[in-house]
């Protein structure tokens, strides 16, 4: 940038014989240095070659930071929930390679489609905007590949297979809700999420995420899950757990039917079924 401007200056210098013009030019030098030449070369020195890096710089960096560590210029966002709780929303730190919203078993890396889904649909209530119409498929692919460069895990491990989800018909039925309630009690969901599902359980204040920040349990009455509001989304959360948070996977401790019953009960807590 500075070199380029230097060249331009030389050219102008050669062309111009007017002393007054030179004086003016000297005066405006600082202004010129700052104004630049519009958006294309607004990022002085950044000759962007990698399209993923370019998209990341334009779309993601504001929150996730240059280094993908979740410490972008926007910083932590305060979110006041419908129930009155104030949540501190921290953008995902890509450098540890830990992802919450996966379709793969706990401890595994997510598959590309998991990341693509987040880029496409965004994460409601966490200020991750949807990019469905804003990026081309190539750009999305490129930015996902770029995100994978932040963490070593991506080189060392490969993703597991996605867990298939098919919603049985009985989900939301009265008997299923009742069974779900016993599961809710048996698995001590209430310890964190509270008896009423409002996230006010006894352990709620003590939970910390992998980065050492307090992470409040979900309040089922506050709206859709960040992952999405469908029964499938709830089911996959129970199955995969939310890595990096206090939410464990129940893939081994509950069978498929019990997990679906628990989905029925959470749907009731959310007020979606009676």
């Amino acid at each position, binding site marked *: 940038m500075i070199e380029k401007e230097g060249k331009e200056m030389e050219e102008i210098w050669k062309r111009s014989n007017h002393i007054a013009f030179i004086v003016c030019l000297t005066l405006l030098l600082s202004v010129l240095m700052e104004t630049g030449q*519009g958006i294309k070369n*607004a990022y002085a020195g950044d000759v962007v070659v990698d399209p993923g890096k370019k998209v990341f710089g334009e779309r993601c960096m504001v929150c996730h930071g240059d280094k993908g560590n979740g410490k972008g210029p926007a910083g932590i966002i305060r979110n006041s929930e419908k129930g*009155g709780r104030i949540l501190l929303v921290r953008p995902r730190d890509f450098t540890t390679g830990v992802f919450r919203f996966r379709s793969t078993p706990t401890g595994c890396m997510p598959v590309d489609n998991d990341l693509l889904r987040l880029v496409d649909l965004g994460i409601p209530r966490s200020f991750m905007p949807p990019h469905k119409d804003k990026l081309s498929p190539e750009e999305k692919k490129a930015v996902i590949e770029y995100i994978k460069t932040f963490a070593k895990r991506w080189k060392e491990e490969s993703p597991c297979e996605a867990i298939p989800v098919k919603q049985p018909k009985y989900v939301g039925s009265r008997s299923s809700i009742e069974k779900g309630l016993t599961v809710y009690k048996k698995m001590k969901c209430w310890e964190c999420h509270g008896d009423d599902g409002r996230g006010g359980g006894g352990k709620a204040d003590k939970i910390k995420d992998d980065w050492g920040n307090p992470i409040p349990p979900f309040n089922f009455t506050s709206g859709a899950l960040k992952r999405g509001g469908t029964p499938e989304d709830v089911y996959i959360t129970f199955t995969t757990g939310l890595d990096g948070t206090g939410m464990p996977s129940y893939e081994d401790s509950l069978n498929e039917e019990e997990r679906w019953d628990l989905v029925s009960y959470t749907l009731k807590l959310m007020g979606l079924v009676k």
Partner: protein
Amino acid sequence: MRNRFYFWILFLSGLVLLIFVLVAAYRELTPEWSGYQADYKNQLVTTLKDEAAKKKARSLSVEVQQLYLADLQRIDRCTSCHVGVENPLMAKAKTPLKQHSGDYLANHSPEKFGCTICHYGQGRATNKREAHGMGHETHWDFPVIPAKYLQSACVQCHDAGTLKAKGWDSVARGENLVNEKGCRGCHKLGGAGGVLGKALAGVGSKPIAYFPMGGVDGEKNTYAWFKQHFIDPRKLVPISEMKVTVTDEEADYLTAYVLSLRSGEMPKQFRQFNDAATTAPPSPTDGEALYKRYCIACHGTGKDSMFDEIFGRTVPSIMNPAFLKTADNKLLKKVIEEGRAGTQMTSWKAAAAGLTGQETDSIIQYLTKARPSDKPEVFGYMRYKADQKHGEDVYNMRCWHCHGKKGEGELGLNLRNPVVQGDDPEFLAITVRDGRKDTPMPPFGKNGLRLADQDIADVVAFVKTLGQRK
């Protein structure tokens, strides 16, 4: 054979009709109250020792009792069943014959006050279900008020100080909560308050039909509605934007308070106000108290900007030094007086939400306490020849994530609203360049995301056109 058949049909239906007539007659001749009164007589006769008094008790006639209260324009027949309210002999009897608790009747004689002025209920009714207005689908307005909200009646004649001295402070506590939580930010009360919520004057005597009762658990009446609405407003009114977090106890105090907000006054001879003890509104020069009264519900401490899921937008931190550095008092006054159209920010001028100019100035003075002394670096917007088209490209690259594709705002400010559209472009340009420290708005200038000043000028020019775009 056939004739016999019809004879029996006629005979049996006649018999059924006769039974109905007899039952109806029996019920008409032995109403609820007559049973209670007979019971009352029996109890008196067995308790009384003195023969003369016994004789007097035996001669009591069983009839509908009625209190005609000309001053209050009420007719109360409650004593038809609650026949022993004034009789000390009935202190240990069972309801409804029991004597009235406490010494209330010593100063509030039933002949002067009646019953329903404090207890509500249908004074004219002569059976329990209708008199109390309770039970499934009775549809009576103002059913008998639960004891925990009874104090809402006391404040119609007595001031908070007198009541507090006796330990009856639930309404006063409710009023304190209303002041602390800044309910006037949305509800007009006592002449001033926002317009986002319903005005609260007279809300305590609104009929049941005024409230959407669909989601109310249990008995569907105003008392239950208020309490449940304080605990979870959106359960009863799905579109409600009410921000309230209260404990169960606080919800009871608030309910007692709103129930005390009745239309009309008691006749003068009933009122016993000691004016000195009533809670006075804050002085128009006390900016802090005014801030708490009108602003705190949404803006909180004013130090942190916060996305509000109920409003679906960020409530700005109006006491953030970085904001105050760029925003002068003139702008603050404009925003307070005109509000922010398209957002929840009400117009607070005297003709709308009812703040006087002096009060607005006091609030501004309070807000700007932490204003830094240095001015922001001049941007010089007018020096640039702004290109809106290029500004749109910059906007689509940098701004829409937070401010929305059409500037409608989500995490970021709504850029379409008239106050922003009417803002000084210099102010907008400085904001884009320097960002807002301690808010999600990052600096986009050379110290931040490295937009060139020309780009900033372009994007400001584009933002200024958002108001007209669809």
